[in-house]
Structures are given as C-alpha cells and as structure tokens.
C-alpha cells in the first residue's frame, strides 16, 4: 500500500475508535483520558497492533495538542483573576506544592532514578488536572458550593506555578546545568510577569490585533500566534507549553471568548491525539513491573492531596464536610502530568520506566479520583462525620481545659 493510504487508514481507524471510547466514557460519567491512554498502549510499541505509517503524524499532532491544551487553559483565566488569586491563595498553593511535589521527588530518589527524574516525578504528582476536576465539580453540582473557589484557586496557583516549573524542567532535561536552569527560570519569571502586567494594564492591546467577528481570520490568527510564540519559547528553552499559556492569558474580552469557542474542537482533537501518542510511546510490557510502585505513589499522593484540600478549605473557614469535599475533589492528576512525562520521555538518559510509571499513575488517579470525590455525598460518610464531631464534643465536655 502507498504510505499516505496507510496513514489515512491508521489515523482514521484510531480516531474512530477514540470517538467510540469517548462516548462510552461519557456514558459512565468518566473522563475519556484513561481510555485514550489505553488505546495508545494497545496500538503502540509492543502493543496488540503496532501502527506503522502514522507515528510521525501522531508525534506532530501531540505537540500541537499540548500547545492547544495550554493556550485554552490560559484563555480560561483572565490576568486579573490569576493575580487577584495569587495573594489570597498563595499559602494554600505552597502547602499544595510541598505536600505533593516532595513525595514524588522522594519516590524517584528512593527508586534510585537520580535527581533529574526526581524533578520530573515531583511535577507529575504535584499538579491536579484542572480539566477533570472542573468537570467533576460541574457533574456533581458543586459549582455553587462554598469550598469550590478554594479548589479552583489551588488549581489556578498550580497552573501559574507550571509557568515557572516547565521552563525549569526544560532546562534541566536539556542538561544545561544549574546556571542554565537559573537563566531559564529568570527568563520565565520575567516573561510571565511582563505578560501579566501587559495583559492587566493594556488588556485590549493584543486583542485588538484580532477581529472577534471574523471567525476564520480569528481562528487562523490566534492559532498562528500561539504556535509562533510556542515555537519561539521552545527555542529560548522556556518550553513551548508556557509560551502558549501566556498567549492565552494575554488575550482577553470577546476575542478570548470567541477564540475559546473556535479552538475547542481543535483542542479536543489534538489533545486526544496527544494522549494516544503518549500511550503509543509507552510499551505496555513496561507497566506490570511499575504497577505496584505506581499504586503506592498514587495512594500516598492522593492522601496528600486530601490533606491539601482539607487545610486550604479550613483556612477560609469552611466546615468539616466541605473540607473533605475539597480534599477528595483535588485528587485526579491528568493532562499536566502527562505533559510533564511527555517532555521527560523525549530526553535521552532519563529512566525508561518513568513513562510507564506516569501512565499507570495517571490511569489510577484519573479513574479513582472522580469516584472518590463522590464519597462526601454518601449518607454513611455524613453519618461518620456527624459521629466524629459528636465524639469530639463529648471529649471537649469531659475535659473542659
């Protein structure tokens, strides 16, 4: 068969399969991410049916997928939301980083994978999945809940922290050493601050480059600018993802609103390609040996996320049930963890088991997280909480001092 013909058949069949999988997952109220990963595992190296011609297509598509995921994330927030949140939620963000990044780093060091892998794994266990969590909150009808802003602000801080972490990671992975890493971080901090200041002070300036009314020109313009900035950022060792995120933040008003609508279908397509590609690049035979470590890591870091949410909610005076809802709601890791692992996997010299561990880890948290998030709604849990608070009151009465 002609190369192009095979490519069409492979890409078509795989996308069709993804469509069916996405439909199934939605029927059960699950995120489609785990199913996309499974599909990738099945068709990749060492899978059931290795693809031959379309690998390059999926590789490029995955790159675009990451960029689109990040630009859409940036479009979701306005610069003032990011900055306004910063002061109030910074302590919660700090607790979040310490409690969740350190276990990942310690785990990598414990397995003897070296400190580069430790930096990578720290990122993987740190960031919750904004996409999955926002969807779970909407599905469970908790958008109006008073602990929801706490959850969202933790996510915002994480996303902002990623703008500093990703360039650092890129520098570390490129092996540029301490000085290179420091320079990359300084460039990233400078760029992020400049973009935020420009976006807040002159929000309309960048947006006026585009017309919100002409869909075709807007789509091409925003996509072009995003890819261009992402490429330039990658060239400067600041990470393409961060460049895209900043473009998203810099756009505002009706331009941002319309661009979100136009880019959403593209994001859905290429993000699916990205998850599949990550699965494709992982050999499923590598997973069984890391399954137990992944499970252990998942249990530990899901527990630390519960603590994070509990503490963050307590700080703003949310009652005990709400604290549990915040904690249990923050558990799923998803797209960002895969983005980080994806960056690492492409680097020579990094522990090859890392990709398998990351896949298994994300699969575990993204499937169990949304289910565990429902626990506070069950009567037995409410009863247990009520029993606990009654017991505490009794002990307080018994020992008034």
């Amino acid at each position, binding site marked *: 068969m002609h190369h192009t013909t095979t490519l069409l058949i492979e890409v078509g069949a795989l996308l069709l399969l993804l469509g069916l999988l996405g439909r199934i997952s939605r029927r059960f109220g699950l995120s489609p991410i785990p199913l996309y990963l499974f599909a990738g595992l099945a068709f990749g190296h060492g899978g059931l049916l290795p693809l031959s011609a379309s690998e390059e297509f999926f590789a490029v598509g995955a790159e675009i997928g990451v960029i689109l995921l990040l630009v859409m994330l940036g479009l979701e927030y306005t610069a003032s*939301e990011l900055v306004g949140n910063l002061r109030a939620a910074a302590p919660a963000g700090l607790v979040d980083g310490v409690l969740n990044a350190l276990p990942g780093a310690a785990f990598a060091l414990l397995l003897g994978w070296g400190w580069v892998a430790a930096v990578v794994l720290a990122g993987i266990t740190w960031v919750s999945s904004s996409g999955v969590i926002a969807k779970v909150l909407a599905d469970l*009808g*908790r*958008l109006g809940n008073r602990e929801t*802003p706490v959850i969202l602000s933790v996510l915002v801080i994480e996303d902002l922290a990623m703008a500093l972490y990703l360039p650092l990671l890129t520098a570390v992975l490129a092996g540029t050493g301490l000085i290179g890493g420091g320079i990359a971080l300084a460039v990233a901090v400078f760029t992020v601050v400049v973009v935020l200041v420009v976006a807040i002070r002159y929000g309309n300036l960048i947006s006026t480059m585009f017309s919100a009314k002409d869909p075709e020109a807007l789509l091409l313009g925003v996509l072009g600018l995003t890819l261009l900035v992402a490429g330039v950022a990658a060239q400067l060792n600041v990470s393409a993802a961060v460049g895209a995120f900043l473009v998203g933040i810099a756009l505002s008003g009706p331009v941002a609103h319309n661009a979100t609508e136009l880019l959403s279908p593209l994001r859905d397509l290429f993000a699916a390609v990205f998850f599949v590609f990550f699965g494709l690049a992982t050999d499923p035979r590598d997973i069984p040996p890391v399954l137990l470590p992944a499970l252990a890591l998942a249990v530990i870091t899901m527990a630390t996320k519960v603590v994070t949410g509990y503490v963050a909610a307590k700080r703003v005076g949310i009652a005990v*049930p709400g604290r549990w809802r915040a904690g249990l709601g923050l558990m799923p890791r998803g797209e960002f963890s895969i983005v980080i692992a994806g960056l690492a996997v492409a680097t020579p010299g990094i522990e090859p088991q890392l990709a398998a561990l990351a896949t298994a880890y994300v699969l575990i948290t993204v499937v169990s997280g949304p289910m565990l998030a429902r626990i506070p709604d069950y009567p037995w849990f409410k009863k247990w909480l009520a029993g606990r608070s009654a017991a505490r009151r009794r002990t307080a009465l018994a020992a008034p001092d």
Partner: protein
Amino acid sequence: MRVRVEQTTLPGIGVRHDVVTESGRRVGVVSHRTGRRDLVIYDEEDPDASTEDIPLTDDEAEALADILGASLMLGQLSGLRQQAAGLLTEQIAIPAGSTYVGRPLGDTKARTRTSASIVAVLRDRDVIASPGPQFRFEAGDVVVVVGTRKGLDGVTAILADGDPAG
C-alpha cells in the same frame, strides 16, 4: 430593602452571587462565562454545600427574575385575556381632576358597582399588586382592571367623574 449580596469569583468558570435570607437559608446564582446560569440552593445543615443546582437558560433566568421582581403580572394578565373569552384587562389612568385623587380605593366601590376588579396600581415605575380598600390614589396612578367590557367601561367612568350611573 438592602440585602447583602456576597460576590465570589470562580476562576475559569465565572461568578457566584449569594444571599442569606431572613429565614436563614442561603440561595445563590452561578453565572458562567458562557452565559449559562445555575440557581443553587444550599443545604440547611451544611451551609457550604448546595443541595440543588438548577441550570437555567437565558430565557428561563429572565422569566424567573421577572416573577421575583413582580412585574410579570401584566404579562400574565394579558395571557389570561386570551384564555378566558370575554374577560378583559385594561390599564386606566386616573385623571388629575378625578374625585378619587387622595381618596381610598374602597370609596370607589368599583367591584360592587361594576363587578370588575382593580388588581394592581402602577405608580411611577412601581407595581402595587392587589391594593386593599385602604389604598389611597394619587394623580397619575394607572389602575389595572380585570373584568367584562361593560365592567371596564364602568370603572373608567367611575374614575373619570365619580358615578357610572349618573
């Protein structure tokens, strides 16, 4: 009638407004960036949690706002006019020279004399729904009346010069 409305931004989603009622219940509205609005009602025992989360379309939200704002009645009445044949609604202005300016509604004895009912009074931009017999008219008030054609004409006549019969 000032009520404390608490506003909370939901980064990436929109804004939430909520109000604690005099009876101690908390009610809120989540306005999504996309234009969707959710009406949320909070749990009595766990005031942080919403028990109900009702998505509303633009039209539904507007209708609900109208009902709560009490200006819906006129629309309802015009609907009623179409439903019940022979029953009509009319808005009748009280002329400045009317004998009833400054006098209570009960004095008109409109219902007994014409069997048409005064269901509301529009004053400036306010709606006074179901005014009682003690309600005092002012010049410029517009009276909303429901009744038969004959009844409505009777009320118009009463308000204009005082007596339908004479």
